[in-house]
C-alpha cells in the first residue's frame, strides 16, 4: 500500500522585493505556513528552488539553513513560542548567543529591542508572567535580535484581542517603514489592510490570486478570496 502524497505547495512562483510588505492569505491547509517554513529554512522543498538573494535555500545544508535563520530571517509565531524558563531579556538574547555575540553586548541590545516594543519594565519576567500581547512583543524583539533582512510572521495577531492585535500591527508597520521586508500570514483582513503592499492568496497549495496594493495605490480593499 502506498502512502498518499500531499503537495502542500505546488507550482507556486513568487518573487518578493526588498522592503516589501507581503500578505499571505488562504484557508486552513492552503499552504500558507508551509510557504513561511520554506522561507525560514525550517522546511525544504521536495523540488524547485527558493532563492534568497544569491543563495538557493533548497541546496543549503542544515548548518547553512540554521545560519540563514540566525542572520537573514526573523520569525514571529502565532503562539509566540518563547522559551518558558527564560526571562524576556534572556529570550531576546538567545539568538544573539547562538550567533556568538558576547554577554555584555547582547544584553545591551536585548534591552534596547525590548524598549522599542514597550517592554523595558518587563525584562526579568518569564513568559508565564506576561500577557499574550507582551509575549508577542518579546517574540518580535527576539526576531529582530540579529538584525535580519526579512521578518516572517505566522498569524502574529491570531491569538490576541483586537486592541493588542492593533498594537502589534503598529509595531510591524513601523518595522516595515524602517526598511524591513515583511511577509505576514494572516486571517485578519481588516487589521492589516493599511500596511500591505501586496497580497497573495493560496488555495490547495497553489497561488490562486495576487493583488498589488500599497498606500500609493489607494490601500487595501479587502482580502482576495474572501469574496468567494
Amino acid at each position, binding site marked *: 500500500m502506498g502512502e498518499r502524497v500531499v503537495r502542500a505547495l505546488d507550482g507556486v512562483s513568487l518573487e518578493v522585493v526588498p522592503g516589501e510588505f507581503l500578505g499571505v492569505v488562504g484557508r486552513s491547509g492552503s499552504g500558507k505556513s508551509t510557504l513561511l517554513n520554506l522561507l525560514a529554512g525550517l522546511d525544504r522543498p521536495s523540488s524547485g528552488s527558493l532563492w534568497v538573494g544569491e543563495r538557493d535555500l533548497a541546496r543549503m545544508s542544515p548548518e547553512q539553513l*540554521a545560519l540563514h535563520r540566525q542572520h537573514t530571517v526573523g520569525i514571529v509565531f502565532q503562539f509566540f*513560542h518563547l522559551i518558558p524558563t527564560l526571562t524576556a531579556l534572556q529570550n531576546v538574547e538567545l539568538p544573539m548567543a547562538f550567533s556568538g555575540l558576547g554577554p555584555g553586548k547582547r544584553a545591551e541590545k536585548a534591552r534596547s529591542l525590548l524598549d522599542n516594543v514597550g517592554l523595558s519594565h518587563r525584562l526579568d519576567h518569564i513568559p508565564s508572567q506576561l500577557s499574550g500581547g507582551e509575549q508577542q512583543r518579546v517574540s518580535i524583539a527576539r526576531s529582530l535580535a540579529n538584525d535580519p533582512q526579512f521578518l516572517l510572521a505566522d498569524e502574529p495577531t491570531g491569538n490576541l484581542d483586537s486592541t493588542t492585535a492593533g498594537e502589534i500591527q503598529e509595531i510591524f508597520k513601523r518595522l516595515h517603514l524602517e526598511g524591513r521586508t515583511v511577509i505576514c500570514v494572516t486571517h485578519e483582513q481588516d487589521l492589516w489592510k493599511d500596511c500591505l503592499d501586496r497580497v497573495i492568496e493560496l488555495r490547495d497549495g497553489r497561488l490562486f490570486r495576487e493583488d498589488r496594493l500599497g498606500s500609493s495605490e489607494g490601500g487595501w480593499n479587502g482580502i482576495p478570496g474572501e469574496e468567494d
Partner: protein
Amino acid sequence: MPWRDILQMAWRNIGQARLRFVLTCLGVLIAISTLVALVSFGAGLRLQTVGNLEVREVFTSFQILGPARSQSFRRFRDSGPDSATPTARPVLDEDLVRRVAALEGVVSVQPDIRFAARLEHGDKVHLTRVRGAGPHVAPLSPYSKITQGRFLSGTQGAEIVLTGRVARRLGFEPPEQAVGKTIQLLTDRLKRDVSDGDLPFQTVRFSYQVVGVLPRLLPNQTNPFFRGVVIPLEEARELWKENASGMTSLSGLTSLEEGRGREYDSIDVRVADLVSLERVREEVRSWGAATFAIVDQMKRIQEAFLVLEVVLGVLGGIAMLVASLGIANVLIISVMERRQVIGIMKAIGGTDRDVRRIFLAEAGLIGFSGGVMGLLAGWTLTRIATVFIDRYFQSHDILNAPNLFAYPLWLVAGAIGFAVGLSLLSGVIPANRATRVDPVEALRQG
C-alpha cells in the same frame, strides 16, 4: 554558541528539574564513591607495600648470597651460580667484604650475622635469633621507631635491643620496663677438646643490658633484612664465628674446626643510588656471586597490584556503567519533554551542533557534580573506615596503623574524568536524538 553560554543554558535546564538531577547525580555519586573507595584501597595497599620499601632504602641495597641462602632464594635471585658449583663462587668472608666496600658507589657493606640464642631473665626463658647490627641500621625501621630507650651506642659493648614480644616473654609487662635491666644470653660455641661421647659444643653465658625495646609494628613497616633482637655487630661476630647454629652443611663445621672461620650466609650491600646498584651488582656477579635485590621483585609486585587495582576499578566501573544508563534514560526523557523548546531553538537560529552540545553539557554537568560529590563521599567513607581500623590496631598494641586508603592525584582526577567521560558518552544518544527533532513538527505540536 560559545561554551560558556552552553554551560549556562545546560545548568539552567538542569535547575528546572532539580529532583531528577539530584537523583541522577546520586546514582553517579554512589558509583564514584564505590569506585574511589575500592581503587584508593588498592592504591593504599600498593603504597603501603612499595612505598615502605622505598622508605626503607631497600631499593638501594642488595644481598650477596652464600650457598645456603642462595638455595632458599633460588626462585628470586639472579642467575648466579648455585651451591652445586661452590668453587665457581667467591667465599663470603671479610676479604669479599673489603673487595665490595672498595667499589665505587658503595655506601656500606655488612655481613649478615645472626645466630640462635637463649635469653633468660629470672625464671623466664625465651629462644630467639640474635643479630649483629652496625650503626647504619639505626635510621632504618623498626630501629628508628624505638620509643622506649635507645638504639645500640656502637659496634661493641654488652647492650641489647629487644622486641616488645620478646620483652613480654621475659616477664617484662609492660615491655618498656625491660629498659635498663640486665638479661642473660646463652648460646652454643664449638668445643675443640672433645672426648668420646661428648657433643662438640659448649654453652656460653653473657650478661647484656637492655637499652631499648621496639614497638610492635606490622611486618611491612619493618626492614625485611634487619629486624628482631640485636646486639652490637662486633659482639655478635665474636659469638657467631664459632657458633654452629643455622649451618646447613658439615663443611661449615669442618671449616670452623680447621680454624678457617665461618663463611657468612649473606652480605648486605648498600649503594648510593639505583644506578650504582646495577653497576655494583654487575661487578659482584662477574666474580661469580649470586645476588638478590628487592628491585628485581618490584616488577612482579607492581604487576600484582596493577591487577588488583584493575579488578577493583572494574567493580566500581560497573556501578558507574549502571549510573550512566540512568543518565541516558533521564536525558532521553528530557529530550521528549523538551521537543518544543528544541524546536524553538532551531527556529531562531540554533544549529544542530548547539543543540547537541547543550545536551552533552547537561550530561557532563551531571557527571561532574556526581563525580565531585562521589569523590568527597568516597573519601569520607574511607576516613571513617580508617578511624575504625586505627582503633582496631591500637587495641592490639600496634603503633602506626597502616593507612590502607590512598588518594593519589591520578585517582582524584581519574575519578572525576571517568564520571564526566562516561556521562558524556551516555549523553551522546539523547543529544543526537535532540538534533533530529523536526522544528516544524515540534512547534506544531506545541
